[in-house]
C-alpha cells in the first residue's frame, strides 16, 4: 500500500510518526465565529432535538474492557454499573473452569434500554491476567485484541462499498483494577499501564475499597497518582486532549482529586433507614455502594456513563484509532502476521491527513 505513495509524502509522514510523541489530535478546526445578533427566532437550536431523535432510533454502542487480577470484583462492578447481569462472575465457575493458563479475551454483548435509548453494551473480560506465577508479557494478548479491533474498523472504512454504519467493536474504555494493598502500585500494574495507555483509554480503579479506612484511602490514592505521574502514564482523561478551559478545569478536578476512584461493588440489596440500597452487610455495619461517604462508586458511574461516555468514544475514534491508522498506513509492508488488507484496494491517500468525523 505504501508503494502507491509519493516519496515526499512518505518522508513528511514518517517525520511526523516518531514513536514517542503523539500526532496532533485530529479534531475539526473550529470555525471562526462571527458574533451576529439575531433579529428573530430562527430555530437553530432545534437541531439538538433532531440529533436526539436520530440517536434514539439508531441507538449506540459502547465497549468496555475490564482488566485486573482475578477476584478483584470486576464482574460485580460492571453488573453494578449497568444495573444488570451483564457479566458472569468468576466465583460461580465450576471446578473445571479454573484460572486459564494464558490470558483469554471474552466479549459478551447485551442490549440494554433506558428512557427510550438503546445501548448495545459489550463487556470484554480478561480472565487469567496477572494470576500466573510468571506474568511477563501477559498484557500482550490484550494489546493484540485492541489492535485487532482497530484493524477490523480500518478494513471496513477502507472498503469501496462501505456500510452506512460501521459496526464499532473498538474498545472505548478500559477499567484497570488496582489491588488495594495500601502500599503502592505493583510492578505488573505499572507495566500494563505503560504499554496500554497509548493504545486505549485507561481508567484506573481501586477495587474492593472497603478494605481501607478513610486515611488509608487518601494516602493510597495520592501515592498512586504520584507514581503514575512519575512514570509518565496518561490515564483518561488525558491532559493533552482537553479542548477548552471548561473541560480543563473540570477534568483537572477529577484527575487530581477523585481519580483513581475507590469503588465497592455489590449486587445485593439491604434495607437501610427505610430504603433499599445496594450494599454489603458485615457484622460491623452495612457498606452502601451508592453512598459517597462510603465509596466512590457513584462518582465512577457518573463519570463513565453520565458525563464522559460520548467523550470516551470520541477520544477513541479521533485519537487512538487515528494513531493506529496512520501507523498502519505508513508501515512499509510491515503487516501483522496472518492479517492484511487482502482483497481490497486502498484508495490513494490525500496529501494531508483528513480527519474523518463520524
Amino acid at each position, binding site marked *: 500500500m505504501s508503494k502507491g505513495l509519493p516519496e515526499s509524502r512518505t518522508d513528511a509522514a514518517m517525520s511526523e510518526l516518531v514513536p514517542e510523541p503523539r500526532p496532533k489530535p485530529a479534531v475539526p478546526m473550529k470555525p471562526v465565529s462571527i458574533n451576529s445578533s439575531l433579529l428573530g427566532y430562527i430555530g437553530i437550536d432545534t437541531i439538538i432535538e433532531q440529533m436526539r431523535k436520530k440517536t434514539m432510533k439508531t441507538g449506540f454502542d459502547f465497549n468496555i474492557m475490564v482488566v485486573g487480577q482475578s477476584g478483584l470484583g470486576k464482574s460485580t462492578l460492571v453488573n453494578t454499573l449497568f444495573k444488570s447481569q451483564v457479566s458472569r462472575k468468576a466465583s460461580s465457575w465450576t471446578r473445571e473452569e479454573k484460572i486459564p493458563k494464558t490470558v483469554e479475551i471474552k466479549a459478551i454483548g447485551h442490549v440494554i434500554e433506558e428512557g427510550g435509548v438503546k445501548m448495545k453494551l459489550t463487556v470484554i473480560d480478561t480472565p487469567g491476567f496477572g494470576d500466573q506465577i510468571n506474568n511477563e508479557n501477559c498484557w500482550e494478548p490484550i494489546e493484540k485484541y485492541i489492535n485487532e479491533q482497530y484493524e477490523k474498523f480500518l478494513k471496513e472504512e477502507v472498503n469501496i462499498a462501505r456500510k452506512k454504519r460501521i459496526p464499532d467493536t473498538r474498545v472505548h474504555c478500559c477499567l484497570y483494577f488496582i489491588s488495594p494493598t495500601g502500599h503502592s502500585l505493583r510492578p505488573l500494574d*505499572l507495566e500494563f499501564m505503560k504499554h496500554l495507555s497509548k493504545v486505549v483509554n485507561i481508567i484506573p480503579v481501586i477495587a474492593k475499597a472497603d478494605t481501607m479506612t478513610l486515611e488509608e484511602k487518601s494516602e493510597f490514592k495520592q501515592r498512586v497518582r504520584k507514581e503514575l505521574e512519575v512514570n509518565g502514564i496518561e490515564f483518561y482523561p488525558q491532559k493533552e486532549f482537553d479542548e477548552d478551559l471548561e473541560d480543563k478545569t473540570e477534568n483537572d478536578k477529577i484527575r487530581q482529586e477523585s481519580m483513581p476512584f475507590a469503588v465497592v461493588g455489590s449486587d445485593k440489596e439491604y434495607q437501610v433507614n427505610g430504603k433499599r440500597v445496594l450494599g454489603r452487610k458485615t457484622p460491623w455495619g452495612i457498606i452502601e455502594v451508592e453512598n459517597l461517604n462510603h465509596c466512590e462508586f457513584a462518582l465512577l458511574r457518573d463519570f463513565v456513563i453520565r458525563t464522559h461516555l460520548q467523550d470516551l468514544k470520541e477520544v477513541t475514534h479521533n485519537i487512538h484509532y487515528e494513531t493506529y491508522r496512520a501507523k498502519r498506513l505508513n508501515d512499509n509492508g510491515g503487516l501483522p502476521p496472518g492479517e492484511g488488507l487482502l482483497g481490497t484496494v486502498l484508495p490513494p491517500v490525500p496529501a494531508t491527513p483528513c480527519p474523518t468525523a463520524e
Partner: protein
Amino acid sequence: MPASSSSLEAPSLVFALCIARHSLFTAKGDPWLACGAGCWLWAVSRRKLPGSCGIRSFQIKRFLEDTDDAELNKFVKDFPGSESCHQPEAKTRVSRSHLESRPQTPDLCQDDLEFRPPSWPQSCDSQQFFTAPAPLSPSARPRSPWGKLDPYDSSEDDKEYVGFATLPNQVHRKSVKKGFDFTLMVAGESGLGKSTLVNSLFLTDLYRDRKLLSAEERIMQTVEITKHAVDIEEKGVRLRLTIVDTPGFGDAVNNTECWKPVAEYIDQQFEQYFRDESGLNRKNIQDNRVHCCLYFISPFGHGLRPLDVEFMKALHHRVNIVPILAKADTLTPPEVERKKCKIREEIEHFGIKVYQFPDCDSDEDEDFKLQDQALKESIPFAVIGSNTVVEARGRRVRGRLYPWGIVEVENPGHCDFVKLRTMLVRTHMQDLKDVTRETHYENYRAQCIQSMTRLVVKERNRNCGGCRRCCTKSKDR
C-alpha cells in the same frame, strides 16, 4: 535390709520398725523422725497409685532396696523435702503440733513394738535407708513455692502421695529461669497486613522504621530475608521472639521460584543447628530454626493462587505452615465461610500438609474438646490486624474505624484473631517447637546424613577404582 523375708506386707512395716528402733533406742535417733518415718510408710502402704489399686509393698521394697536406682537418689536429692532432713530440729516443733492436730495420724510407736519380729539382725544396711530422709512427712514439707500449681495443695494429699507429680513444676521453674525462644516466619505478597498482624499479636511495634518501596523500586527487587528480634517479658516469663520476614515475595512480574530464598534460609538454619549439635561444645547452641510459618493468603482471589500452591508445596516438609486469610474485613461472613471451604478443599486437593493440631486426649473434658474441634475447623484463620486503638462500645480497643462501623480486632465475632493468638501463643507454641524439632529437623538431618553417606561411598568407590580385590577383601573382613 533385714526384711529379706518373702512376706509382702512385712517389709514396709519392718522398715518403719527399723527406723523407729534406731530412733528410739540410739542416742542419735530422733523420736519424731521415727514417727514420721512410720507414718510415711504406713501412708505409703495405703496410698492409691494412679492406675493401681493400692500400693504393693513389694514395690516399695524394690524401690528402696535398689540402690542402683539413680532416679530415686536424684529425686530424693532434688526434692525440696530433703531439706527437712538437714534441719530436723527446726521442724520437730512444727511437726509435733501438726501430728497432734491430725486425728488420722496413727500412733505407730505402740504398733511397731507389737510387730517386732523375733529375729532382728542388726545389719548396717539399715543405715543407708535411714539417711534417706522422709521427704513427705506431712509437716516436714516446706510451703510449696508454686502456690496454686502445687498438686499437693490439699492437706489430704500430703499424707497419701509420694510427691513426684511436682516434677513438671520443677521443669517449669527451670525453664522460666532460662526463658523461651520462638522463631516465627511471615510470608505472603506485600500489602496483606503481615507487619500489622505481627504487631497486633505481640503488642509491639517491630516495624517502626520501615521504609516502603515504590513500584518502580520494586521492579528491581528480589526476595530478601530479614530478621527482627525482640525480647518480651510477661509475668516473669521471658520470651525471645524472632520474626523472619520475606519482603519482595510475590511482588515481581515474574515470580518463578521466588520461594527459593525462603527454602534456602530454612535449610541454612537446620544446617547450622546440625553442625552445632554435632560439634564438641554443645553448651550454648543457639536455636535459630524456624518454628512456624504464617502464610498469608489474599482475600481478593478466588481461593489459592498458583503462587500460593507452589510456595506451600515447596515448604510444607521444612516448616510448620499455618495458612492465614489476610485482611478479612474485606469479606462478609458468608464470603469468609465460602473462601475458607474453598481453600481447605484446595489444600487437600493439592496435597499440601499444613500444620495439624494434635488431637486432644480422650480423657479431656467436653469443653476443651469442643474448643479444639472449633480450632481445627477455623483453618485458614481469617484475621484482621490493627496498629490503632479506637473507641468502641465505650471501651478502647484495637480496631479499624470505617464510616460504616468499627471493626474490633479482638472480637471473635469479627475475625479469628483471638483464635490465632490463643493457638500460637497460649496453647500450641510448645507443640510447634516440638514438631519442628522432631519431624522437620529430623527429616532434614536424615536426608543430610544419607546424602553425606552416599557421597562418602561414592568417594571410596572412586578412590579404590572399584577393583574387585578391594571389595572382596572388605567383604571377608
